[in-house]
Every structure is written in C-alpha cells, then in structure tokens.
C-alpha cells in the first residue's frame, strides 16, 4: 500500500468515526441527558421520549452503529485491497 493510499484510507476511516461517534453522542448524551426534559414533553405509546432514549433507544442505536461501522470498513478494506 502506497503512502498516499494509506493516508486516504486513514482519512476515510476517521471520517466514518466522526459521523458515527456524533450519532453515538447525540442519542445518549443529547437525547438521553441534556435535552431529556424537553423531549419528555413528547410522548409515544406509554413512553416519554427522553426517558425512552435513556433507557431503550440509545442502546438500540449503539448496536446498529457497530454493525454499520463493520459494513463500512469491510467495504473500505476491499476498496484499498487491505482486507484479509
């Protein structure tokens, strides 16, 4: 792998990390903690939305985030020919 390829690969990886970790922060810290009172005024089924994010929603999103990262990185590895 050439130096420029390596740089591009790493940059793309960091880009993915920035996006996915922003979502990670948003669903747990923002929805579940910082804005919990505001979101609690919205209700669906028997849940207040902020409470739901803190005790359910954030965890579902966490699982999805990891599998999305796996999928993105497997594609990226193939593109740069560094998959095993």
């Amino acid at each position: 792998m050439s130096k420029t390829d390596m740089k591009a690969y790493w940059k793309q990886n960091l880009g993915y990390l920035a996006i996915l970790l922003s979502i990670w922060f948003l669903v747990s810290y923002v929805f579940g903690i910082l804005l919990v009172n505001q979101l609690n005024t919205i209700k669906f089924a028997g849940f207040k939305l902020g409470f739901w994010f803190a005790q359910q929603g954030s965890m579902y999103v966490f699982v999805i985030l990891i599998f999305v990262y796996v999928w993105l990185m497997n594609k990226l590895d193939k593109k740069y020919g560094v998959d095993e």
Partner: protein
Amino acid sequence: MGILAWTWILVGITFALYIGIAIWARAGSSKEFYVAGGGVPPILNGMATAADWMSAASFISLAGIVSFTGYDGSVYLMGWTGGYVLLALLLAPYLRKFGKFTVPDFIGDRYYSNTARVVAVVAALIVSFTYVAGQMRGVGIVFSRYLEVDINTGVYIGMAIVLFYAVLGGMKGITYTQVAQYCVLIFAFMVPAIFISFQMTGNPIPQLGFGGTGEDGIYLLDKLDGLSQELGFHEYTSGNKSMIDVFAITTALMVGTAGLPHVIVRFFTVPKVKDARVSAGWALLFIAILYTTVPAVAVFARIKLIETVSNAEYAELPEWFGNWEKTGLLKFDDKNADGVVQYVADKEVNELTIDRDIMVLANPEIAQLPNWVVALVGAGGLAAALSTAAGLLLVIASSISHDLFKKIIKPDISEKGELLAARISAAIAVCIAGYFGINPPGFVAAVVALAFGLAAASFFPAILLGIFDKRMNKEGAISGMIVGLSLMFFYMAKYKLGWIGDMPDSSEWWFGISPEGFGTVAMIVNFVISIIVSRVTPAPPQDVQEIVEHIRIPSGAGEASSH
C-alpha cells in the same frame, strides 16, 4: 417439586456442563492459555464477551437499582453499553492487529518502555482484583439464598469450579464455558421477564410491554409515576441526580468499559481484524438483549411490589413475603402498630426496608411463576458471577506470568515453563479472590463501582493516544497514567472512603461530580497531561512510529504472537 429441589437440579446440570466443556477445551500451549489460540469464531466470542461482561451485579442488582432510582438508573444502562461503541470503533480492531496477548503488552511495546509496562500491569491488577472480589462474594450469596448453604461454603464451591476450568483450560476453557454461561444466564433472565410482561400487559416482549397499559387501561409508566409521587418518592421517569453528575457518571462508565483489560483481551482471541470489529457488535447485541429488558423488569417489579405491600394487612401478605423476610432482604417494622404496611419515602413513617436485589431474586415468586422458573434465576446468577470471575482471573494470571515473568523477570523462560507459571498464577489468584470473597474488606463494594473510574483514568487515554496520536511518546503516556490514577485514587479516598480527614459532604464535590463520575475528570486530566508532556519531550523512535502505521491497516494481522 419444590424450589430447592429444582435449584439443585438446574445448578447441578449447568455445573456438569461447565466442567465437561473445560475438559474438552484444555489449553495445550501458552497461546491457547492466553488468547484461546486466536481462533474463536466472532459470534461465539461475542457471546463469551457478553457473559464475561455481565457480572453478578448486572444480573442480580441492576434491575433493582433502576427500579429504585428510575431515570437516574439510566447511567448504568447507557454507560455499560455505550462503551462497546468506543471499543469497536476506537480500540478493538487496532489492538487485534497489534497481535499480542495482553493490554500491558501493548502499552509496553507501543511506549517502548518497561516502566510503562509495569504501570499498566499494576493498573490491570488493581482494577481486576477489586472487581473479582465482588464476584466471588456474589457466588457465595447466590448459593446461600438458593441452596441454603453457608455463604462461605458457597464461595469454596465457586472457587473449586473456577479453579478447575480456569487453570486447566485457560482462555480456551474460559471462552467456551462462557458461551454456555451466556446461554444459561440470558435464558434465566428472559423467561421470568417474558412471563411477567405477558401477565401484566398482555405483550410478551418486555421492551414493548413496559410502554403498554395494564388491565386498568393506564400506561404502566404513568401509573408508576403517580404511585411514586403518592408515596413521596421522586417521579419515576425523572431523576434526583444533577445533570452534570449524570453526564459524568455515564462517561466514566462508558470509557471505563472500553478500558477494562478483561474486556479488551477478549478481542485478541479472534482470527482477524474484521472479526474483532464484528465480534464487538455481537457482544453488544447479546448484552443489549439483557440490558434493554432490565428497565422493563424494573418497572414491572416495582409496580407489583407497591401494589402487593402498600397499605396491606401484614397478616394477609402472601407467603413469599415471609420467605424473604427470613433472608433479611425484606424488613417490616410496624412503627405505629396498626398491623398495616406503610411503605413511603418519609423515613420516619416508612415501615418497610427493601434490599434492591429482591427485584430480580424474588420477582418470579411475586408474580407467582412456576417453581422451575424461580430456580432458574439461581442458576443464571451463578453463571453470571462465575463467567466474570473467570475472565478477571485470567487477566490477573496473564499479567503475572506473561507481563511480569516472561517480559521482565525471566525473558528466557521456556514455553512449557510459561504455561506452568500461568497455571500457578491462576491458582494463586483464585485463592486470593476467594479469601476476599470470604473476608470482604469493608470498602470492596464501594471500590468495585470505582474500578471503572480507575480504568477510565489509566488505560483508555494511553491506548487511544497510542493508536491515534503517532507523536505520543513514553514520557507523555506514563505521566498521564500516573497522574490520572493518582488523582482518581485521591478523590476516591477523600470523597468516597473518607480516608483523608472527615468525609466531606456531597456539596463539596468538585464541579458537583460524584466519586462514581470522577473518572471522567481524571481521564481528561490524563489526556491533557499526556499531550502536553509528549510535545515537550523527544518524539518516539522511528520503529515505533512504524508500528502505529502498521496497526492502522487491517491486512497481514497474522496470528497473535508472543514475540
């Protein structure tokens, strides 16, 4: 058949299974002992990680904690799952590519320094020992409650079992027993939860059920908010803790999770880098099955309990109440001598003291489920405690035999000698853990919760910077780890254990952050110190910078090796 008979049968069958697996999966080499030969399929590694991760506390206490704290309990739910995102995205793939056996291995090589290695070994030992003592105690408690044996006898039985499969099988034996233990514990947790959800809401899926309505057509959460306020507790869906403390505790738990050596080492056991990524996903999925059920169980159990005992005639309470009174987990003190149970927030008037563990332990009885379901909870609790204890013991054993003995004291030790040293260290570690299980120092319970803060303050920044900051050198990493650890220790000693002067009031906490959340502050300090110190000291040698380039690319991971 009675509960006791069912419990003996279920515990007997599961223990026989664990021993059978241990004999089948004996370790033949030090590589098998440390990382199960590096050949564990990702899904199985996910299950093993989940069992390793979910301790007696997750299984027995977590639902109770959430049940009594409501929204505030979210810090554990988000904290202990969100850490896996950090692990999968920031640490696991690179550490797997690095391809060594232990966390101190990485720190020692990346920071080209035996001092760094020793600091990491010490941190790993402190974190693992505080954590494992709680697990052995957990084994004893489950034994005593379900099998009517003495707590200490319970600890001895637990020690014997763990000794057998950890010493014989090493990581290989532990991994495959953990897979079995995951199946046992998740089945044991979900069966009662599904029964109760169906009973209370008509929906068998607990995660949906607790957003549903009860027989009276009122949403369960609204009902619980109402009941809580009526009795003088805070509203269930909002909390008591300050927002900054909730933020800090969640962060400390997330980052601590990602920095715990017994969790990280699990990702050394899979064959490839991409397996390390995906097995973190599987691990979190398997963990989330339990963790998303926990808040549902918390709500069901709390409503059932309040409805059954609040303002009930003491003489007419169901049989389970008396059974759990005998264990001391429930205490009724008829202060106004009216024969009626007053359960309220006001301590002067309240007559009922409830141990939070009862929310999981007694829940099946409260919901009048069949005896075999009640017995299952005992087998599940044991699986959770044993699997975590074994994982921690392995970290302790490999820290001693590999990081200290092989890498520092006697580098020319033979493969056979190292394997023997690993087995002896594991055996000694079991005995020490057992000793603490039988004679728990008063501060263990307080310190276990802080193990996360310690991991967050020491390992996480050193590993993260080791991967993402090529310029990070040994001076930066070592000073960061030492300052982070010391600061965390100081805050713990002063504000949690009261060792320095009088125990200060919570109003004196720095920035209003509790000791549980202080790991976040110590971690930030570690980051800042590491970066500043590294920028004013020489850059790491060229070959180390090449290692960093090398671990960023997945291909050519090869097999985990000791060289």
